[in-house]
Each structure stands twice: as structure tokens, then as C-alpha cells.
């Protein structure tokens, strides 16, 4: 069966510091991968998605970037965090069907 991992689970970072969140998927090959952000009182917002290694599509222009160095690894990065980057970051994957399956999430607090 497929498993999706995210780390770290929680992170507290100062404004202006860099960020790296990692997501890995097990038990599948060439999945579509997604990064979402969930802010309090708002729906999930798609940030990036990838259909293959090195292929990244951005949905929202912002302070963040994404990379996919390996088939089942997806990384979310920032060079300098802003207060507005705080939120719950979710990675998701999908395979042959439309259904997206989510990871456990990373709670990011920028102070």
C-alpha cells in the first residue's frame, strides 16, 4: 500500500530565515505530487504540483518554490520566510485516478 510522509511535523522559524519541507511517497511510481497550504478559516490552497521529476507548476505567485529531485520526493522551499507564510502545509499524491491522498502535514509558525 501507499504511504506518504512529511517532515518536520512542526516548525517555528524567525522571519527572514530559509525553509525546507520534505514530502516522500512510498509504494507507487511516478505519482503526481502537490503542495497545499491551509490557513485558519480558509480552504486548502494549491501552491505547486508536479507530474514528474523536475516538472513543477506554480499556482500562486509567492515567496515559495518547489522542487522534485526524485520520483517520489517533493520539497517546498523559501529563501526568506514572511509572517504570512505561517500555516499548515500539506503534501498530497495521486496516481491513475483523480483522487488526491494527503500526508499528515507540517505546522509552520513564522515569528
Amino acid at each position: 500500500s501507499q504511504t506518504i510522509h512529511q517532515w518536520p511535523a512542526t516548525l517555528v522559524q524567525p522571519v527572514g530565515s530559509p525553509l525546507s519541507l520534505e514530502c516522500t511517497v512510498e509504494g507507487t511510481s511516478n505519482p503526481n505530487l502537490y503542495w497545499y497550504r491551509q490557513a485558519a478559516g480558509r480552504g486548502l490552497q494549491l501552491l505547486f504540483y508536479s507530474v514528474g521529476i523536475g516538472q513543477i507548476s506554480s499556482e500562486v505567485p509567492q515567496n515559495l518554490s518547489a522542487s522534485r529531485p526524485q520520483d517520489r520526493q517533493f520539497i517546498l522551499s523559501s529563501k526568506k520566510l514572511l509572517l504570512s507564510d505561517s500555516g499548515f502545509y500539506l503534501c498530497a499524491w495521486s496516481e491513475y485516478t483523480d483522487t488526491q491522498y494527503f500526508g499528515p502535514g507540517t505546522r509552520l509558525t513564522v515569528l
Partner: protein
Amino acid sequence: EDQVTQSPEALRLQEGESSSLNCSYTVSGLRGLFWYRQDPGKGPEFLFTLYSAGEEKEKERLKATLTKKESFLHITAPKPEDSATYLCAVRLPFGNEKLTFGTGTRLTIIP
């Protein structure tokens, strides 16, 4: 602009009291409507996918239905463990990977 609206925002029910959650959408060319359950501090858990008007799916005490403009998540004789936030999302026509989420309904079942 494509939108997904969920109602009510919050719902408190007594254990065993059946009710329905609503998800209305204004998208062109729906390619799937998805229901997820999200517990506090965790990633969304997939429940159902519906593709065409008239389709119904069931899982334990939950049943999801779909019309041309809305979907209902019916919960029958709920138990306290059904307490969670229920999220609805829609997927746009072929070639677009994006899921557009509603803000969710926070369901509380009182013993």
C-alpha cells in the same frame, strides 16, 4: 470565478441525530467532486469521489450524493467519533490538476 461553498460552517448534533452537509459549486465542466474528513492537526482523509449527477456512494454512516449544482453528505445516526471537519473539493475539466476546496463544515457530535 469557480467557487465551492459549504454550509453550514459548523453543526452540532446529538448522538444519533441524522443530518446533512451541503456543498454547492459554480464550476464549468465538473470532473469530479471529492469529500474528505479532517481531524484537528491532521491531513484530510479521503472519503468519496462523485463524477456525475445522480451518483451516490456510502461508507458506514455516511452517504454522499451529487446533483448538477451541489452535493450532500448525509450522516445517519452519528457517533461522537464522527466529529471532524468535512471538506468538499471539485476538480475542473481534463488537463487541469487543481482541486478547488470549500472551507469545510465543522461537525460536532455530542454524546
